[in-house]
């Protein structure tokens, strides 16, 4: 069966694109707050003010003539990431892990010349990756160091953790692992593996690639069931705190784990996608219902994170994941 029925999706509590746009994004996210997350520089400033750790900013380029100084800007740094400030969906991100005098190397080992990087930077500046093609700014960040816990689970890239935060409560999490197919990018559309993460413990639940279930990483063949996110107790409050920081009620928080500096926020998203439901093999609806039923929102991110841990843990079975009944179970209960 290539198609499932509307009734079944409803019973799993799956949220569709229209429902997301209508019932979550436009309901919880006032439009005037979008620039806070669409502009990564602003997000970074906000996060720093709130005491949340972020990758170090190495430099910014605002104008076309800044491109001439690119070599001087890049020279002192061995490794760096070039990003458009208003890009979305990981577009326009260039990672350089190494460079000698003439060549810059991508994680895949491909070499680029300075002129290639200059072109990339000009493209970003003229708005190729920005929403609506507006002129953009380039930011250069320090490279995240791969946490050894993930070294067996990623291919040529840094995995990132997406946590959906509704009204300050983390409700669902997913780890995105880079693969050969995804060209080192943590983008599910391009073949990255999405691993559903239990909110209660930080351990892996399910994994999908291209929408199909997988149990091992396609490149390293490492089994996912042994994977548990470290610092989970620190991560959740960090994500929850982004609510106060931005004021957005429905937020996708992207976190990476740095070998040396621990969890860092790399990006916030006001319109997080729905693939997280596939990776978790669970719908968002029941969890949203729990949060929407709350009479007040606790001001302490730590308390909220604890609440989520208690309520949304799949392994603890506090909340039945879905109302799926087969004919066999029906007969038994009768």
């Amino acid at each position, binding site marked *: *069966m*290539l*198609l*499932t*029925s*509307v009734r*079944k*999706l409803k019973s*799993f509590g*799956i949220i*569709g*694109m*229209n*429902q997301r746009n*209508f*019932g979550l994004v436009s309901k919880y996210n006032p439009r005037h707050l979008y620039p806070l997350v669409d502009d990564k520089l602003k997000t970074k400033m906000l996060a720093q003010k709130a005491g949340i750790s972020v990758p170090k900013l190495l430099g910014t380029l605002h104008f*076309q003539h800044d491109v001439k100084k690119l070599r001087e800007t890049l020279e002192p740094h061995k490794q760096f990431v070039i990003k458009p400030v208003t890009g979305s969906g990981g*577009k*326009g991100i260039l990672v350089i892990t190494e460079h000698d005098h003439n060549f810059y190397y991508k994680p895949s080992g491909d070499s680029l010349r300075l*002129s290639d990087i*200059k*072109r990339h930077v*000009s*493209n970003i*500046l*003229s*708005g*190729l990756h920005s929403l609506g093609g507006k002129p953009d700014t380039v930011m250069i960040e320090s490279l995240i160091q791969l946490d050894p816990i993930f070294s067996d689970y990623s291919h040529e890239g840094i995995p990132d953790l997406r946590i959906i935060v509704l009204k300050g409560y983390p409700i669902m999490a997913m780890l995105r692992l880079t693969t050969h197919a995804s060209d080192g990018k943590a*983008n599910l*559309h*391009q073949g990255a593996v999405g691993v559903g993460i239990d909110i209660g413990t930080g351990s892996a639940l*399910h994994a*999908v690639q291209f*929408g*199909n*279930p997988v149990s091992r990483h396609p490149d390293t063949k490492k089994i996912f069931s042994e994977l548990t996110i470290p610092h989970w107790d620190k991560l959740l409050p960090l994500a929850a705190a982004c609510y106060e920081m931005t004021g957005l009620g429905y937020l996708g928080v992207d976190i990476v784990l740095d070998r040396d500096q621990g969890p860092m926020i790399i990006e916030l998203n006001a319109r997080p996608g*729905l693939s997280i*439901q*596939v990776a978790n*093999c669970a719908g968002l609806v029941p969890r949203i219902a729990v949060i929407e039923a709350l009479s007040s929102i606790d001001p302490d991110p730590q308390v909220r994170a604890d609440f989520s841990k208690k309520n949304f843990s799949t392994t603890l079975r506090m909340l039945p994941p*879905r109302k*799926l009944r*087969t004919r066999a*179970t029906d007969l038994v209960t009768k």
Partner: protein
Amino acid sequence: MQTRLRLYFIVILILCTGIGLILYKHLALGFPLLPDDKKFVWTIEAKIDYIAQGNPVIVSFTLPPKETNLTFMEEDFASSDYGFSELTSPTGRRAQWSKNIATGAQTTYYRLSLYENDWIADQPPTDPPLTPKQPEFDEVFKTAAVTLLEQVRAKSANAEIFTRELIKTLNSTSPNQNQRLLLSDHADDDYKTNLIVNLLALEGISARVVRGLYLEDGRRRQSLTNFVEVHDGQQWLLFDQSTGNSGKPENFLMWQRGGQSLLDVVGGTNSKVSFSIIRNVQSTRNLVVRSSMNKQAGLIDFSIYSLPIEQQNAFKMILLLPIGALIVVIMRLIIGIRTSGTFMPILIALALIQTTLITGIIMFLIVVSTGLLIRSYLSRLNLLFVARISAVIIMVIVIMASISIISNKLGLSQAMTVTFFPMIILAWTIERMSVLWEEDGPREVFIQGAGSLLTALIAYLFMTNRIVEYLTFNFPELMLVNLAFILILGQYTGYRLSELYRFHSLERRNVTNKR
């Protein structure tokens, strides 16, 4: 919830206004709902011939009454050198031609074109009957009449049956002596009509002469046919004096009611009138637009029809856009198809209308794929973004020009329509697809490209549908209905069709987990 209620209120308001206006135009103004609705337009020409005596001439001719179920499109009183006036009196309209001095054979024409409004019922005349004037018959004649009437009266119960029986008796193939006397040998139609009217008067029944024309295509030198109209106490009934059948026959134009003359010529002799009839088929819509414009119906007077033809043609295209927009909304919100650029498919569909489908799609694919090839080279040239997109525009124009020129040389005139594609949009499409290719790989390009083409194709099929085209142009109010639909669709929060596929693996896993 408040906003939702308000939205539904607005939607219903818009929907009612739209449908109401459509119904008004259809029911009150007679706009047909289908483009193929046709009507017969009759053009009748009355030719009046007479010999003038060299004196002042006045020709007076009865004109047909303007009945509610008929629309007179045009009346033409063409006669050179004649003064003309139209006189209206309680007994009907008359045309009057006059000339100071005329000699020899003269001809004047009266031309009328009309069509029947089938949405308005035929209404019988409502004027009250006059008390019948007793005819003056000589003794022998009167005896014969009274005998005949007695004979007819024996077989009848009311005025209607009496009239029918009387006509039948007078027309019987084996007339007795009385009937032969009454009809006499040289009886023409007018004599017979007068006889019937007189006999009915003798019986105390009001009756009058009605003259009319049978409308048949291609008839020439026709004359009016006499009918008898009888008042049965409640209403006027029409009888065919040669068969006794009652009721108005089909395709019969009532020309004259009552006894006054059809044609009077003062200062001329040998006057006669003959009619010729031609039938044309015309689209109802054109007729209605014309007559509504003439009547100054507000809705039509302040509408697209009042614009010059060129602008009307532009609007024909513009009014199709909402249909395309609706298709895009459905495809994206309900089906969940990804397109490159939200409304790019509509513009492609508009171009396809000009180029025809197959040629258009082939041309689109050629331009875009050639564009992508050249664009991939451009990306190596290290250009600034705005400069690059401008370069792509020029490139697109060059490709279009080459396609036109080459196809012209090869004798493929169809391919020259490539110019109808919106160049800027094509350039943007190429640029966006090229970036998409670099970042998300060819798969995404094909998905979005195919999605755009499919949407464009469906929009094209709807926009070229004759009925859709007809309705959007002639009922611009449909836009309101369309708007209401789009507002409702904007509230749709259910799953998209594509999501049933996207999440289908969940179902499998849920089942396996349980087991």
